[in-house]
C-alpha cells in the first residue's frame, strides 16, 4: 500500500479489472449478520435469494450441492451494512455486534 511514484501505473490508471478484490473491506464491520436457516426460502427450496441480490459487496455465497442448498457469508468483504437483514422477507437474518 505504499509504493513509490515510479512503481505505480501512470496517472492512477487501474490496469487490472476487478482489483477491488485485493482490498478486504470486512475489517470495516461493526455488526455481523447471523443467518438462521430455519425459515430461509433458499435453504428450503432454492428461491428468494433477495439477501444475495441486494448485498452491495457480493458477500453472500449461495450454492447448491447434491440437491442441498447452501448458504455462507464471505466475511472478507461483508461490511456489516445490514441490508440483507433488512430485505429478508422471513426475518431470518439478525445483526449482532462483532
Amino acid at each position, binding site marked *: *500500500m*505504499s*509504493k*513509490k*511514484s*515510479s512503481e*505505480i*501505473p*501512470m*496517472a*492512477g*490508471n*487501474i*490496469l487490472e*479489472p476487478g482489483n477491488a478484490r485485493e482490498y478486504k473491506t470486512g475489517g470495516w464491520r461493526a455488526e455481523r449478520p447471523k443467518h438462521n436457516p430455519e425459515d430461509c426460502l433458499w435453504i428450503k427450496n432454492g428461491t428468494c435469494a433477495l439477501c444475495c441480490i441486494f448485498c452491495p459487496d457480493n458477500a453472500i455465497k449461495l450454492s447448491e450441492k447434491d440437491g442441498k442448498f447452501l448458504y455462507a457469508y464471505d466475511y472478507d468483504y461483508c461490511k456489516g451494512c445490514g441490508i440483507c437483514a433488512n430485505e429478508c422477507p422471513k426475518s431470518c437474518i439478525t445483526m449482532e455486534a462483532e
Partner: protein
Amino acid sequence: MAATVKMTKPKGSIEGLTGDAAIAYALKQCDIDVLSAYPITPQTIIVEDYQRFFAEGQVKTKVIPVESEHSAMSACIGASAAGARVATASASAGLALMWEVLYCASGMRQPIVLAVANRALSAPINIHNDWSDSYGARDSGFIQMYCQSCQEAYDTTIMSFRIAENHNVLLPAMVCIDGFILSHNVERVELLPDEVVRDFVGVRVPVQPLDTDKPITMGPLCLTDYYFEFKEQEDKAMREVFKVYKDVEAEFQKVTGRSYGMYETYKTKDADIIMLTHSSPAGTAKAVVDALREQGEKVGVLRMKLFRPFPAAELAKELSSAKAVAVFEKCLSFGAPTNPLALEVRTALYDLPKKPMVTDFVVGLGGRDVPPATIVEGYNKTKQYLEKGKAPLYETLGVRK
C-alpha cells in the same frame, strides 16, 4: 542558441497564410484523428479552416462540434484516452471555461495539442491580444510554447505532437500565438510536403489506451495515499520535456533546415542590457535592438519560446553576463510582487553569485499596440535604473496614467 530559419530542402509550397491558417494546415498534415472545438475569436480561423478541410473530404478526422470549451476538452480527453491523435483550439474566456478540464488532460497524461490565439480576459470584454489567458494556465501541467511568426506556428504545431506523445513525456501541449497580431496576419509560410510531415510525426503509439478487449480504469479517485505520487510522476514527465524538445527539434532541423530553440538569443553576447520577452513583442524588440546597436548601445534580446517547462538553468547562464534584464510581458498578475514572466526570470537568476538587475514592464494589455517606442522607453528606464542601482519590481508602460 540563435534561431536558424533557413529555407532549404525539401521543396514544399510557399503560401501567404495567417497564423491561424498555418496552424490549421499543420493540423491537417499531422493526420489528427479527432478535433473537438468551440469557436472563439481570434482562434476561429483554425477551426473554420479545419472544418472546410473536413467538408471537402481532405481529412478523415472526426470533427466534433460541442456546446462549450469545457465539453471540447472533455471530448478531446475521451478520444485521446482511446489512443487517438487529438487537437483543439481556444482563447481567452474559452480557455477559462476549459480550466477544470485542462488539469484532467494533464493529470490523465493525454498528449492533446491545444492551439491558443492569446487573447485578453473579460471584463471589460476585449477580443485582442495579451497573455493573461495562457499565463493563467501555466500551472495546469500543459507544455507551453510561444511562437513569434506564422512559419514558427506551423513548425511548432507539427513538432508539438512529437513532444507531447513521447512516452517519457505524455503531457498535453499549448501552441500559443498572439491573437490578431499573428492569428490574422498573412505572412510567408513555407509548407512541407504532406508526406514529409506524415513521416515526421508518424502514428501515435498510445500508452495504456482504452480498449474493450483489455479494460482498464482511468481517472479513478485517488486520495491522500497516492495522489501525491501521481503528481510526482507528472512533475518528472514535465522535466523530461527539455530533452525531448531538443531531440525533436534537432530532427526537425535535419528535415527542414529550421529550428528555434527553447529560447532564442539575439545579439546578447556583449550586451549590457538584455530585453527578455516572447511572441510578437520579441520580434519588435529585435528590430529595436538593430536600431539601438547602430547608435552604439550594447543591447540584445532573449526571446523565450518554451515557457513550460521553464528552462531556468540555461537561462541563468545566458543572462549571467548582462548588467540588467528588461522583461516585457503582456500580463498583469494582480497583487503579485511582480508579473509571471519576470517572476520566473528572477527565480532563475536568484542563485547567481552576481545577479543582473531585473526590470519588469507590463505592456500591451487588451491588444494595446506595442510599438518600438514602448520597447525603447523600457530600455531607457532600465538604463536609468542601472545608474541609480535600484529599480521598481514592475511598472506598466504604454498606458495613460
